[in-house]
């Protein structure tokens, strides 16, 4: 017990330094981490390895390091004794689960930067534990909050991101993933020589971007491979699809599609392209223009592999229900194999809504029987067309009214109100919100650009470029990239050098 008191007092001592200068705090934390690690390897901490109650002496908000190391030690001990990856004590009904949750809910976000490996492993263990009892929902929310606690901007991609979206898909708690997905990722911790930064910053200090402390060395992210970020964006896109946020979904899919490649492309990208085609149809009613960031040769591969999808899009754009049905029936097996059957059926449903939106541009009022002759995308049968329209109006995707006239029961009229009839103030508010939202995103992106600019400016490629520029006798303009007002052109340029 004496040792516990020693640990508590050491931790408390740390608190005094928290208010002082960053350097001193940094030194103290490093010392503490080193000594704890030392005692781990000396096995002098073994007295605390089996008793969860020991943890009650520590407060995650103040003693995040000690708490975490002890918790890990206990879990590890259990793992070794039970020969299981997830010991039963860690399962949601076990004794360690509440301790872990308690920690994840309240840890000190500055201190864990020094014990990134342990922190990440804990998150992973909790996620696996929740999954192993088929209750992934238990973990999604706490992991999300932990990620936001560690890095409120969430702009650095980590292996936890991927773990989290996977968990959300398993739990079908799509809304829960939004706070993370809506943050724009701007950085990746580099695991290659090129990506590793040589300098080691003061971890506990305030940093402009979280990229300063979430690095490959920090252990906050497991080593990444090129598949990870593609998967993350694909899964993220799928979550948006499930929530019918088509616009955001297609942005995520576009990110996957335009991943830079060293030559061959991956099936993940093709998968994203297929879904992107369908999402574009549902959202915009047509095949969207492909993003400029996709290389033409890559686009050709996409198009040749996803031929049935493009045929489907063609039939859709013609607005011909019969042809669309024929295309869908012709390739049922393909939709099934790609697991896109659900999306395809949504594409089919969205056809009449898009057709009606087109009709709305032309007509202010029209009878249903006239309409079904005009629009190929509606059923031939007048009654069927009428019920289809009625359901569209009820679902809110088209603003219109159906009017039955008593004299001519067969001539139901469809009337579209003009747009200005919409309530003005609510619309105004909506627009304002959207503008503010986009503005925030823009600010976040500008931060990303600045950071990227700086990193690229210090990279060996840019130095080489500078040297070349000097050789060419045009040294002056080479430094422009470090200035404030450089846009994205330079980024592109350097990317061009690498591809």
């Amino acid at each position, binding site marked *: 017990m004496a040792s516990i008191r020693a640990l508590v007092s050491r931790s408390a001592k740390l608190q005094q330094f928290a208010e002082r200068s960053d350097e001193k705090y940094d030194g103290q934390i490093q010392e503490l981490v080193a000594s704890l690690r030392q005692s781990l390897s000396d096995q002098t901490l073994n007295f605390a390895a089996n008793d969860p109650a020991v943890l009650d002496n520590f407060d995650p908000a103040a003693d995040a390091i000690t708490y975490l190391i002890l918790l890990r030690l206990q879990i590890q001990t259990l793992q070794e004794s039970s020969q299981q990856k997830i010991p039963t004590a860690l399962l949601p009904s076990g004794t360690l689960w509440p301790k872990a949750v308690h920690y994840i809910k309240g840890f000190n976000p500055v201190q864990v930067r020094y014990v990134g490996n342990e922190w990440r492993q804990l998150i992973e263990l909790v996620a696996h534990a929740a999954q192993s009892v088929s209750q992934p929902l238990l973990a999604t929310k706490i992991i999300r909050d932990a990620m936001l606690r560690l890095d409120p901007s969430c702009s650095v991609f980590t292996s936890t991101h991927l773990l989290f979206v996977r968990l959300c898909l398993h739990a079908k708690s799509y809304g829960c993933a939004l706070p993370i997905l809506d943050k724009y990722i701007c950085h990746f911790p580099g695991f290659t020589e090129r990506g590793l930064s040589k300098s080691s910053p003061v971890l506990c200090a305030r940093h402009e971007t979280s990229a300063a402390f979430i690095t490959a060395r920090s252990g906050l992210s497991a080593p990444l491979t090129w598949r990870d970020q593609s998967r993350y964006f694909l899964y993220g896109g799928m979550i948006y699809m499930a929530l019918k946020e088509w616009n955001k979904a297609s942005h995520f899919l576009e990110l996957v599609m335009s*991943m830079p490649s060293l030559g061959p492309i991956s099936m993940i990208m093709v998968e994203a392209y297929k879904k992107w085609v369908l999402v574009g149809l549902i959202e915009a009613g047509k095949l969207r223009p492909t993003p400029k960031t996709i290389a033409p040769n890559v686009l050709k591969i996409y198009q040749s592999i996803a031929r049935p999808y493009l045929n489907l899009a063609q039939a859709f754009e013609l607005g011909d229900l019969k042809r669309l049905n024929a295309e869908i029936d012709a390739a049922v097996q393909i939709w099934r194999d790609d697991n896109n059957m659900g999306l395809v059926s949504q594409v089919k449903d969205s056809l009449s809504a898009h057709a009606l939106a087109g009709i709305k541009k032309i007509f202010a009022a029209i009878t249903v029987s006239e309409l079904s002759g005009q629009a190929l995308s509606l059923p031939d049968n007048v009654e069927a067309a009428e019920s289809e329209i009625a359901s569209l109006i009820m679902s809110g995707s088209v603003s219109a009214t159906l009017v039955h006239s008593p004299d001519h029961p067969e001539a139901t009229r469809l009337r579209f109100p003009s747009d200005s009839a919409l309530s003005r103030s609510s619309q105004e508010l909506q627009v304002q919100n959207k503008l503010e939202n986009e503005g925030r995103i823009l600010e976040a992106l500008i931060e990303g650009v600045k950071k990227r600019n700086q990193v690229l400016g210090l990279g060996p490629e840019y130095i080489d470029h500078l040297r070349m520029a000097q050789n060419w006798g045009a040294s002056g303009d080479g430094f422009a990239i470090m200035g404030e007002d450089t846009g994205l052109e330079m980024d592109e340029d350097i990317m061009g050098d690498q591809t």
Partner: protein
Amino acid sequence: MDTLPDAFAPAQAGSSSMPANSGAKLGPVENTNSPKPVKVDDPPKFDLESYIANYTGRTRFNRLYLIGNTSTLLAVDALKLAITEAKNGRDVGQYEKAVRALAEASPGEKEASLDSVWVQDVQRSVRAQSERLEHELRGYKNNLIKESIRMGNEDLGNHYYETGDLLAASKAYSRMRDYCTTPNHIASMLFKMVNVYAERGDWMGVQSNVHRLRNSQSKPEDLQKNQPKILAALGLAQMHSGSFRDAATSFLAVDPSLSDTFNEMITPNDIAVYGGLCALASMDRNELQKLVLDSPTFRQFLELEPHIRRAIAFFCNSKYRPCLDILENYRTDYLLDLNLQRHVPALYTKIRTKSIQQYLVPFSRVTLDSMAAIFAPDVVGGEARPTGLNSPFVQELISLIKEGILDTRIDLERGLLVSSQTDPRTEVQAKTLDSLSTFNKEAHTRIIRAAVFHAGLEVQGDIEPGSREQMGARKGGGYRRGVVG
């Protein structure tokens, strides 16, 4: 007139001959007829004899031949005149073509049989003269006297032009370029080129030569003299390339001093008609009033064709029905015009569309019946439901709305055309949001790309089936099933 090609010397019949290439030289005239021949049954308003008397040069034959092929009424007369015209010249190809056409239209005529004696005579003499001129040119070249070489080439070009070998003619003329010593020579050479290209139907060629003419360093007074012709040729070329607005500007700038100096290509009457129609099709009411009706120079042309003037005046006064009526009455004439025939449908559609557009400007809603009375009077008379969904007029409106030309919506219940009231504020907001989010997305994509490069996470995948990433994607798809279900 001296700078112009005196290409059409009312030649003495029977000199030399043109061998087999008569097929190639017919190209341009056939082009104007393609893809499907236009047929006109109504009588035109002009008198054939006096009409054709306005023109000189090869265009006479081309115009007659076109009328003969287009108008069912005038076919025989026009083709007979064309045959006479061809026999006065030395172009065997023209003659044969006209005879063939006549034989089709009216086999009984005595002109419908080929005068093979004349044909052989002419062919022989043309061949002899070609050889003589080539021989002379070789002589000049040996003597290295620039002026002689230039004249030799010019003679050869004129000869080929007369006999219908347009390709060889343009080649001969372009060979003159190196031997031209004065700006005058250059201008005359370029005008010859313009004529040849125009007949070949190569309007791009006409345009480029016209630009060369404009940039040639002639003396100011010469330039002044050539200006009307240059502008007329330019306008014609622009009209043929479909840019009616530019064509109208060019025609409107033609000086009345043109009068009869360019009759081998275009007469002042033509300027009035072409310019007027192009302007009607491309300008709004204010511009028409200011640039066309009030123009002191173009007024003189318009006086030659008063109905065009009237049509424009009606349009400016928002009296669209009389304007369209006048144009409709003259449709036959214009379909029989060498240059206009191909463009009549496009021009008329544009004028009509523009009238509908202009008609709608003052209204926020207008009944379909009143519109149909102006723009589709024949429909109003003939059909049970002139403003029903299936009437051609309503279908026309629908297609105009679909193309985004009309910003209106149709209310079939009340028979109204309602203009869409757009709220500029909402529009600007929507546009801003759109451009902002587009920018954000693209910026994000590019940042990610740069970051991925920097972190060394570029895709190294392969596309072999059964590889790990495909299984991953499959697995991802597995969740998707849950999403949809």
